[in-house]
């Protein structure tokens, strides 16, 4: 018959040992032999063991002994017992229920092949919480219990289950099997030794059962770091990860092993990057080091694989079914990303056995973090609004059906890929045109980055940002006002009105990419500014980064924000701690990130008022009427009539009459008046720029007051929408008030409806078109040698505009490069001479600048055509409706590429990149500063179940975190909160302790 030897291994476990030892005599199936091992405890565990078992039954081992070693030592000394001998392994923190052994043996009786049996493990403190019912492992080496976090045991999993492995806590193993398998692998002193043993047992043809009728309570003291461990110098997290990988790779058959290596190399790299982003460099290091440690000792791995060769392949099909399904890895990755976005940091459970509930606060934008499926998405008013705005956009932009390149107004025809933009940004000397030595403006880098995200398709990025500006602005305004305006209909109204402002439609029609981006970013600025005002430095970094992006496109944004920020610092700086610092971060980041470019801008103050792209005087109204400005209409192409926004102003004025919320309304109106003042001032200024047709007026371009008016509109909208929930009160009232409420609603919604209607009727195009031909004719592109250029001439309003293109159309940003002064003056004179048709050496001058073709796009000016025809050095290649093309005969000198390699520029680019990464890391969500592990830290080792109290506590917490729970099982592996990273210090490591896991 059966003979059972219980082995209790203790190590500094006096807190739990008493209860464990008390549980042994209570077993309904009495134990035949009991042996205690004390691994050099310092807290009197040895005394407790001696008291319970007698001194001859207690073995004392050194402090650095591992669990497996201790068991080996006991069994080496213990003579075999008669009959079928079983060994029952118990940790000092694992108290079996009275009927546990009986149930285990009963199960063993019914399954002769069962060699290893384990009880159902429940939590030590919260006695009804399930910990384990068999453990499996994923293909990436992660431990998986298959249980929900904090799942209560209601018997829902009860059965005798054939599992991959069971924990060594309460493991009942046949002694002959132990001997056959040579027991626990002593090279795995901690973590996963159980998995390894069970895997080997299964490979040898035995069965591993989890018996749910047998219950044991387990404190998981070392895994939860309730006590120091140090059979190894390494951190438990890294140790756990390494052992997990090692066991997996040692036990897999070859094919699966090779796949596993690949999978883990990529997986670990990805996880390490995510950890880095989440500002948990220690975790990232552990992740990489663990993999490195496994793969870095190939001989050890080979030895282990050799030792496990027998039966590995034959048992694989059965074991494979027990592994976590492959989809789980993806789901975990998704959870990780989701958690990152939600600001809780990557959820990861390495080093922890227990699945902890996610107590992260409800954070961020519900739309961003919510993955609740299509239905939930569609029921969100923000998404519906966005879809409606998208439909309006499509209807209005029907006139912009693609037939060529997108361009017009301030936008050069969009050509080139992300790589071209990137090259433009990093190169010291630009070959475009006559060459230029100026550094490319930083918005080129922003566009290059976005294009890279769009797989290099710049046209896609520009198209989405510019043409999709209206729905994007609506979405951004809706999402950003979540905390500002609790009343959803008001938010919808605000978002729709904001998205359809005259500035927005004007920006689309005028091809003003910069303004379009700023309009999308402006609500985000407002939302972040509120958090900056609360002193959040992470929000301040994010604010600074986004402000830098906006400033790169439209420098005026920075001035506006800086003035408001300065005012806010003066008003709130003294009230809340850290506000001044946050504001300084927010306003300082753009200056640091854009430094050399800002210096350039500051040297020509007029450029502060301009935005990225082409500067065409026809895009703005030099005599903008006063009523247009007051009605937030910036003039230029694509703006609706002045009265379209009257409703908005009227509603905002009405908001002033409310007694409550006067503070917000006053601030909103203050922003409005400030923005309006700036708009009036800038709209009266003309800036002299080179490169604009309009030389008659000295190249003066009237400033377009779009961005200040967008600012003003933002203030006005907040002022109007914030107290809007009182409409419901009024509507509930009777008589005049009710009538007034209805009137206000009608007037308020008149603005977005009128704007949308007018936009759809008039169409979205202005100067912006989607059928611009490639500026370099195909023939010229084909026949030009590399470096040879095409001179593009266009006679307009009595003057001849020209640009020199080298083999391709201009990239976005190339128009902002400074041409070399003297060379371009000489070139300009030569072009004028050529266009006059007076003969002479002008054509030769052009040829010496690398002009191979002269192209005149339609409509071809007859005088210009005659002049070009009369030039002997030019041979006409074609002349048609589409334009004319002349080829320079004879020698064409391609200017040699200028020597590159300005150390200063290169150094700055690296510095800028490093600063950007730093700001990104500081701004991105990651580590929390609160300690979510509080439950266990100070929990006293009380005896007896205290499930009720714990359950109560949990209930409160669960209600709070309901949303997170609803997101699914992302906490399955246990949520490791940020403290995990920082917490682990040197003191964790050096101490030598041994602990049963």
């Amino acid at each position, binding site marked *: 018959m059966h003979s059972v030897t219980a082995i209790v291994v203790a190590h500094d476990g006096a807190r739990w040992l008493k209860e464990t030892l008390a549980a042994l005599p209570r077993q309904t199936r009495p134990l035949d032999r009991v042996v205690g091992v004390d691994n050099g405890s310092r807290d009197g565990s040895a005394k407790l063991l001696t008291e319970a078992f007698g001194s001859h039954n207690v073995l004392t081992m050194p402090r650095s002994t591992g669990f497996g070693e201790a068991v080996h030592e006991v069994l080496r000394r213990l003579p075999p017992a008669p009959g079928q001998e079983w060994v029952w392994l118990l940790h000092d923190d694992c108290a079996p229920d009275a009927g546990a052994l009986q149930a285990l043996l009963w199960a063993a009786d019914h399954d002769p092949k069962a060699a290893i049996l384990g009880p159902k493990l429940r939590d030590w403190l919260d006695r009804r919480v399930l910990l384990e019912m068999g453990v499996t492992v994923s293909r990436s080496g992660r431990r998986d219990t298959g249980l929900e976090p904090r799942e209560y045991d209601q018997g829902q999993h009860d059965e005798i289950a054939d599992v991959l492995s069971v924990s060594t806590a309460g493991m009942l193993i046949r002694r002959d099997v132990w001997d056959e398998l040579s027991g626990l692998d002593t090279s795995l002193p901690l973590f996963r030794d159980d998995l390894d043993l069970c895997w080997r047992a299964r490979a040898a043809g035995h069965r591993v059962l989890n018996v749910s009728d047998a219950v044991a309570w387990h404190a998981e003291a070392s895994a939860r770091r309730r006590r120091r461990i140090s059979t190894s110098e390494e951190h438990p997290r890294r140790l756990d990860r390494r052992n997990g990988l090692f066991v997996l790779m040692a036990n897999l058959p070859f094919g699966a092993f090779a796949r596993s290596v690949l999978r883990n190399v990529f997986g670990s790299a990805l996880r390490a990057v995510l950890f880095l982003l989440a500002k948990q460099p220690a975790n990232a290091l552990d992740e990489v080091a663990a993999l490195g440690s496994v793969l870095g000792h190939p001989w050890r791995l080979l030895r282990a694989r050799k030792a496990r060769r027998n039966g590995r392949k034959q048992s694989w099909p059965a074991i494979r079914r027990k592994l976590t399904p492959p989809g789980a890895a993806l789901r975990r990755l998704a959870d990780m990303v989701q958690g990152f976005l939600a600001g809780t940091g990557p959820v990861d459970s390495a080093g922890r056995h227990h699945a902890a509930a996610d107590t992260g606060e409800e954070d961020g934008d519900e739309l961003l973090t919510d993955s609740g499926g299509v239905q939930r998405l569609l029921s969100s008013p923000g998404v519906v609004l966005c879809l409606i705005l998208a439909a309006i956009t499509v209807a209005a932009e029907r006139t912009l059906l693609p037939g060529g390149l997108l361009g017009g107004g301030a936008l050069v025809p969009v050509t080139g890929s992300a790589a071209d933009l990137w090259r433009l940004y990093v190169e010291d000397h630009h070959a475009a045109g006559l060459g230029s030595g100026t550094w490319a403006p930083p918005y080129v880098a922003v566009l290059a980055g976005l294009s890279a995200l769009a797989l290099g398709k710049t046209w896609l990025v520009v198209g989405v940002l510019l043409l999709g500006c209206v729905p994007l602005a609506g979405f951004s305004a809706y999402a950003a006002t979540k905390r500002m305006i609790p009343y959803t209909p008001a938010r919808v109204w605000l978002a729709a009105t904001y998205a359809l402002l005259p500035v927005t439609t004007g920006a689309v029609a005028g091809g003003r990419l910069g303004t379009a981006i700023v309009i999308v970013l402006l609500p985000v600025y407002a939302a972040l500014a509120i958090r900056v005002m609360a002193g959040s430095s992470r929000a301040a970094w994010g604010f600074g980064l986004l402000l830098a992006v906006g400033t790169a496109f439209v420098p005026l944004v920075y001035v506006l924000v800086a003035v408001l920020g300065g005012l806010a610092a003066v008003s709130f700086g003294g009230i809340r701690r850290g506000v001044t610092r946050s504001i300084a971060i927010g306003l300082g980041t753009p200056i640091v990130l854009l430094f050399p470019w800002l210096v350039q801008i500051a040297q020509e103050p007029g450029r502060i008022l301009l935005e990225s792209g082409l500067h065409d005087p026809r895009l703005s109204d030099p005599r903008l009427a006063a009523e247009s400005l007051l009605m937030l209409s910036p003039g230029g192409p694509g703006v609706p009539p002045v009265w379209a926004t009257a409703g908005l102003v009227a509603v905002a004025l009405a908001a002033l009459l409310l007694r409550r919320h006067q503070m917000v309304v006053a601030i909103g*109106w203050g922003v409005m008046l400030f923005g*309006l*003042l700036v708009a009036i001032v800038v709209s009266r200024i003309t800036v002299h720029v080179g490169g604009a047709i309009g030389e008659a007026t000295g190249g003066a371009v009237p400033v377009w007051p779009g961005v200040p008016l967008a600012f003003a509109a933002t203030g006005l909208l907040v002022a109007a929408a914030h107290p809007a929930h009182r409409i419901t009160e009024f509507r509930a009232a009777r008589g005049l008030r009710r009538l007034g409420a209805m009137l206000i609603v009608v007037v308020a919604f008149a603005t977005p409806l009128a704007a949308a209607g007018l936009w759809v009727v008039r169409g979205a195009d202005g100067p912006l078109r989607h059928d611009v031909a490639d500026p370099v004719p195909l023939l010229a592109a084909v026949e030009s040698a590399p470096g040879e250029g095409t001179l593009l001439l266009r006679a307009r309003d009595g003057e*001849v505009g020209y640009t020199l293109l080298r083999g391709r159309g201009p990239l976005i940003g*190339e128009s902002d490069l400074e041409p070399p002064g003297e060379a371009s003056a000489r070139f*300009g004179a030569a072009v004028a001479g050529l266009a006059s048709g007076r003969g002479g050496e002008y054509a030769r001058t052009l040829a010496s600048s690398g002009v191979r073709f002269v192209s005149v796009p339609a409509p071809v000016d007859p005088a210009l055509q005659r002049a070009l025809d009369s030039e002997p*050095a030019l041979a*006409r290649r*074609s002349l048609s409706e589409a334009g004319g093309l002349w080829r320079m005969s004879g020698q064409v000198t391609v200017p040699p590429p200028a020597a590159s390699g300005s150390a200063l520029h290169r150094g700055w680019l690296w510095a800028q990149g490093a600063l950007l990464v730093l700001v990104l890391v500081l701004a991105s969500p990651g580590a929390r500063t609160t300690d979510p592990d509080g439950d266990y830290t100070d929990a006293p080792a009380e005896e007896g179940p205290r499930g009720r109290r714990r359950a109560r506590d949990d209930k409160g917490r669960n209600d709070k975190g309901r949303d997170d729970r609803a997101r699914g099982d992302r906490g399955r592996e246990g949520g490791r909160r940020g403290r995990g990273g920082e917490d682990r210090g040197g003191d964790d490591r050096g101490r030598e302790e041994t602990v049963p896991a």
Partner: protein
Amino acid sequence: MRRLIENRFGLLALVLIAMGALFGVAFVSRPAPVTQARPQAVRAPVESVTAVCPAPAGSRVSVVTPPGAGGPGSATLSAIAAPDAKAADKKAGEDPGEKDAVIDRPGLLWQREIASGGGPLMVDGTGSMAAGLESAQTARETSGAQRGLAGVRCVEPGADTWFVGPGPAAAEMTLYLANPDSAPADITFMVYSGEGPVLSERGNGAVVKPGGHRVIRLRDLAPSPLIMALRVSTRSGRVAAAVKAVLGEGRGADWLPVAAAPATRVVVPGIPGTAGKRELYVAAPGETDTVVRIKAVLEDGSYALKNKETIEVPAGSTASLDLSTGIGGQPAALVLESDVPIVAGLKITGTGARQDVAFTAGADSIDLGSVVADAQATGGKQVSRLVLSAPFAPATVEVRLLPAKGEAPAPVEVKLAAAHTQEIRLTPRGSKDAFSVVVRPLPGSGQVYGGRVLDEATKEGQLVTAQPLAVGRIWALVPPAVDAPGVVLP
């Protein structure tokens, strides 16, 4: 203050006051409307001119540059050759060929009889000799099929040239092509006959290599048209084209002048006041039939001709109309207006037993002045007339004669009333020397059109040749050129 803010209407009042103030600021600061001055092109002397005299053998070649431009400069008259070949010649140290003549005195007419035999000549002027360089060839035959005065401007190579006149069935029409450029010229011909466009079976193209020239009999292209408009255009490169019409023994011969490119309003100037037949040719090269309204600008005003108010021109074809009874014997210009672009030309027939013909054609107004190289040959047997018209607005024109030698006489100012034509007989006092004419509208003048007619009375009949005044290559308008990346946008 505090009460004001806490009052329900206080904040509203404050905001309204602020809005009012901002409105006031915006209203007051609104700039006055500025009328954008159209940028003025700068007048600059032409720096180089190349012209080709199509067949100067046996003719008198006249070359002149009006005085004015300073600095060095010279013009060369040489056999046609590609610029590269010429440069190579110079490099080799060879003398410029014997035929090469170097002319370097602006303001004086250079005239020479060219021996028969030999191809086209090229006039190449640079520097001070370029601004207004004008050259012409005039042949005088007193017998044979070629009897008559036949003169033509030496033309600059171009990409698109129009001729309007009799067809190959009515006259021996010869097309002279020359390419003085360094790129080959790929030429296409298009003939618009009285019956419509003629598609030649033998192909309607030719390639003239750099420095090369070709002579093409139009009969080979289109044998049947009695009247025609000919378009010589190049797909690539440029070509100097000229057409000679020989109507046959006793019926005269002359060159067709280059007609102005198709336009909806064409002025045919330079019709002399001598007697003889006048036949108008109008072609509508487009794809729409049209009715062309004809108005004559005569010495006593401008009016439509009785029974000849309009002429119908079918699409893609040429029509003719005899205007002898309308404008015969009076100096005139014709203003033709149509809804579609047209080109026009006119045949002038001299009087006498043996006739001679001359041709004029639609021309551009001479805004920047015009030069006629060959106004009168030495000896003074020929009579030179200038027919000037101001069809739309009054104009004042300065006429200056440039003699072959000696002092130039003082310029004469001619006042032209609106819608009137004036004929001026060019006779320098006391001199029988050859001279050239420079015609320059004075500032403030309306559009001026004109022509020069040269005739000589002989016993057998009058010899005549004519040429419409072409815009002189004196000045070029240099437009302001702006480096504008925005030109990539339509």
